[in-house]
């Protein structure tokens, strides 16, 4: 490898906030006191929190230094499988910051917030079109929140028919949020195994589907990176016993403009705006998890809903069968604005192109890395491909060791140890915003690490060495948790 992307550079140590500061310093511009002071009962008055007093310079230096210890999509490639770490367009940030959006109070009389309501209404239409589903709610604040909404909708559907189901089918490749969301709704998860091709078979589903089962939670494309090719048959089987098909749409980035979810048997689907629709991950959030449903489930969507009446947009609670409210207000509008801007910037052809290029990039990596790492399923993939540490086992090198060393080469590790069906899984999702040069650099780095695993495995076990810290003692952190300073 010519020259590794990962190098050392001067970053600065920075203490904790409360290890800095001096009483009386201030980092805030106080508005004028134009009223007198009023009495407040001693009984109610506290002493105020023990915060340090810092100047604006203190605060800016502190967080600037902290930011330099991080790695974002803007720093480099972030091939996290199932996370879709694509580029976050800066124009989206500008739009969300516009005072008319960011300064809007959610309980304004609706005639004073027509612009934002129109945006939400239009976004629902866009997402409905992209997924091929009939109605949308933007209220869930994250994918898992959307999954909970979806579960509640399915529950409400059966209740409306006087039915009660206690189980739901969850594939062995499902993301952890799937069974967790099902459990929050009182469903017991019934597992189903994927076949040797890495997809669900209709027979396996037929074996366990019954009238006490509310339905199935599929992910399509699934977490192994494959399109669930038997989805139509599976949907038929589930529907025939009165169940519904929930689709975790986290991997929508592979199929925009290519698959019509509504026509393949999906009844409820959630999207992750912070994945497919380019809104930033923010170090863990906030995201947004809209839920899209078929027409006959529209009546159960959370309220209030944005409705259009004679060119006026209103918030309506007039949906008596709704599952209720998931979020105090209407969801993460600030995130919706960014997704809306993205869709308007891309347009229909580029959204489809994005999916095509995402799948192109993943297959290119698959081809180039096959043999360097063990490819879990030797067949074309969609937007992500899965390898494992099988070829490195002889040197007692694990998936963890491999990806920690990748950091030294300047790449964020791929997703590891998920899905559970692949031992030592390494899930790589490059996304469409990585150029061929970046992919080639990543591939070179992987090859270099694989060679080191052979010739000098110690380098991997000691890695990373170029980051601010070395490997951390997670055992002590869990045994004797130190959660506040």
């Amino acid at each position, binding site marked *: 490898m010519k020259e590794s992307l990962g190098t050392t550079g001067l970053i600065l140590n920075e203490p*904790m906030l409360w290890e800095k500061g001096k009483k009386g*310093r201030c980092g805030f511009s106080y508005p004028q*006191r*134009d009223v007198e002071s009023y009495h407040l009962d001693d009984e109610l008055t506290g002493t*105020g*929190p023990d915060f340090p007093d810092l100047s*604006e310079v203190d605060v800016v230096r502190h*967080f*600037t230094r*902290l*930011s330099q210890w*991080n790695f974002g999509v803007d*720093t480099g490639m972030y091939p996290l499988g199932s996370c879709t770490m694509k580029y*976050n367009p800066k124009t989206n940030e*500008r739009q*969300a910051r516009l005072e008319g959006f960011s*300064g*809007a109070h959610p*309980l*304004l009389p609706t005639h*004073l917030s027509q*612009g934002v309501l*129109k945006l939400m209404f239009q976004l629902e239409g866009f997402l409905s079109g992209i997924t091929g589903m009939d109605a949308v709610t933007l209220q869930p604040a*994250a994918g898992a*929140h959307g999954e*909970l909404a979806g579960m509640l909708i399915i529950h409400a559907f059966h209740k409306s028919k006087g039915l009660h189901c206690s189980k739901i089918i969850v594939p062995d490749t499902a993301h*952890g*949020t799937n069974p*967790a969301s099902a459990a*929050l709704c009182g469903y*017991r*998860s019934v597992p189903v195994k994927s076949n040797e091709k890495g997809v669900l078979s209709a027979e396996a589903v037929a074996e366990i589907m019954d009238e006490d089962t509310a339905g199935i939670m599929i992910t399509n494309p699934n977490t192994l990176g*494959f399109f669930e090719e038997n989805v139509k048959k599976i949907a038929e089987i589930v529907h025939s016993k009165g169940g519904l098909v929930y689709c975790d749409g986290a991997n929508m980035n592979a199929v925009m403009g*290519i*698959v019509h979810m509504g026509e393949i048997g999906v009844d409820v689907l959630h999207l992750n705006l912070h994945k497919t629709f380019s809104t*930033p991950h923010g*170090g*863990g*959030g906030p995201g947004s998890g809209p839920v899209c449903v078929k027409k006959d489930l529209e009546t159960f969507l959370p309220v209030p809903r944005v409705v259009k009446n004679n060119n006026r947009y209103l918030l309506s609670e007039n949906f008596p069968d709704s*599952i*209720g*409210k998931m979020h*105090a207000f209407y*969801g993460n*509008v600030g*995130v919706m604005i960014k997704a809306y801007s993205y869709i308007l910037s891309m347009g229909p052809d*580029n959204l489809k192109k994005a999916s*095509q290029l995402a*799948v*192109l990039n993943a297959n290119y990596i698959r*081809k180039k890395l096959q043999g360097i790492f063990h490819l879990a399923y030797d*067949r074309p993939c969609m937007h992500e491909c899965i390898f494992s540490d099988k070829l490195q086992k002889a040197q007692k090198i694990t998936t963890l060791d491999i990806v920690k060393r990748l950091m030294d080469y300047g790449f964020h590790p791929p997703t590891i140890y998920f899905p559970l069906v692949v031992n030592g899984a390494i899930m790589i999702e490059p996304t469409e915003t990585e150029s*061929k040069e970046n992919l080639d650099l990543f591939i070179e780095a992987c090859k270099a690490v694989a060679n080191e695993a052979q010739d000098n495995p110690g380098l991997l076990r000691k890695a990373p060495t170029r*980051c601010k810290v070395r*490997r*951390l003692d*997670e055992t002590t952190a*869990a045994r004797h948790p130190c959660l*506040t*300073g």
Partner: protein
Amino acid sequence: MRYLPHTNEDISSMLQVIGIDTLDGLFSSIPEDCRRAGDLNLPKPLSEWELNDHMSKLAGSTAVSPEYKVFMGAGSYEHFIPESISYLLSRSEFATSYTPYQPEMSQGTLQAIYEYQTLTARLLGMEVANASLYDGASALAEALLMAIRITRRKKIAVSSLIHPLYRRVVQTYLAPTCCQIVELPYLKNGRTDLITLDEIDDLAAVAVQSPNFFGCIENLQAIGKKTHDKDTLFITSFTEPLAYGLLKNPGSLGADIACGEGQSLSIPRSFGGPVLGMFASKMKYVRNMSGRLVGKTKDMDGKKGFVLTLATREQHIRREKATSNICTNSSLCALAAVMYMASVGGTGIRELARLNYDKSEYLKKEFKKAGFTISFDSTTFNEFVVKFPAGFETKYENLLDKKIVSGLPLATYYPELTNQYLFCVTETKTKEDMDALIRGVKS
């Protein structure tokens, strides 16, 4: 398209490596009958400049400062946001990074969230705080589910003065659990009526909000004592955390769990989201808590570092037995909050809270002077309810035309409170603004 770097040459050479001829060939594993017929029905793409125009038009029609004076709180507060914070949050190492599962390259996020956890715990007087939940409403729902898990009881008591929209979210979350929710009524003085508590037993938790939806400060000490006498968990909720810059914090008054909305801490209102679910509890309950936790530890060289910890509570490990299904949270908003708490500081937050209180008291006094009734006589923080004579709706509409939003009408939420409006005054309202409002309602 500027986000799609592939040239035609790139695409050809990559297709060649893969061994197929066209981009379409990449989708051969998708059966024909699963393919979409026809193109996506979306508007043509806008250039960056067309998008700016389009969005400015949409945003331009909303009633916001400085053009409008909005005297509403009710869970969404106008506070000054320092430019330094907006600037720091736009640093892409914070904004475009992922959840810090690979701690060695995420120490920035991890230390910042550890600092957030610490300052939140100090603000609320609690022993441990998590790394954020979606909002104050879902935080309350999670608190109640946590109490149900800990006590294994199926009954909870919830004050009717908790934000009405929070109570609706709680109902949605608790519906599948078959738990009984007992609502505690309110007294004429604007505080929660505890008399019902005497008759109920076997409660998992008692939940109240302070300052409550009417802006009144509850007697948390008394409620806490009564709750603990019944061997029940005491949950306090809040919508305005700035109040704890001045008032006694829930931890010092016996809260087992304190949760609420952190939007006031320099997060823009943004029509209700994204916002910040703050959540804290006693250390002994930490393994039952939902949400991520950042812990301090050391690396192989003995250097200080931070990691996500106690992850076995969470969905990616515990799956259906997890304490919650939460994955993505409100991390960047938590970052905004800690930057704010650091910027105002211990001295500053007290002064700022004081200013909020005093300005609000001024407006209250002016309403009284103008002959209007303050509905509840308990001490309030920066919100209070005013009772107007019948027919005030017309005056309200006139004031809207004058670009003044005079409070939130309460009848939608409390049908018995017709002609009563919830007003909020923060440090963003000047004496002139308030005088203009009074002149407006008097005229």
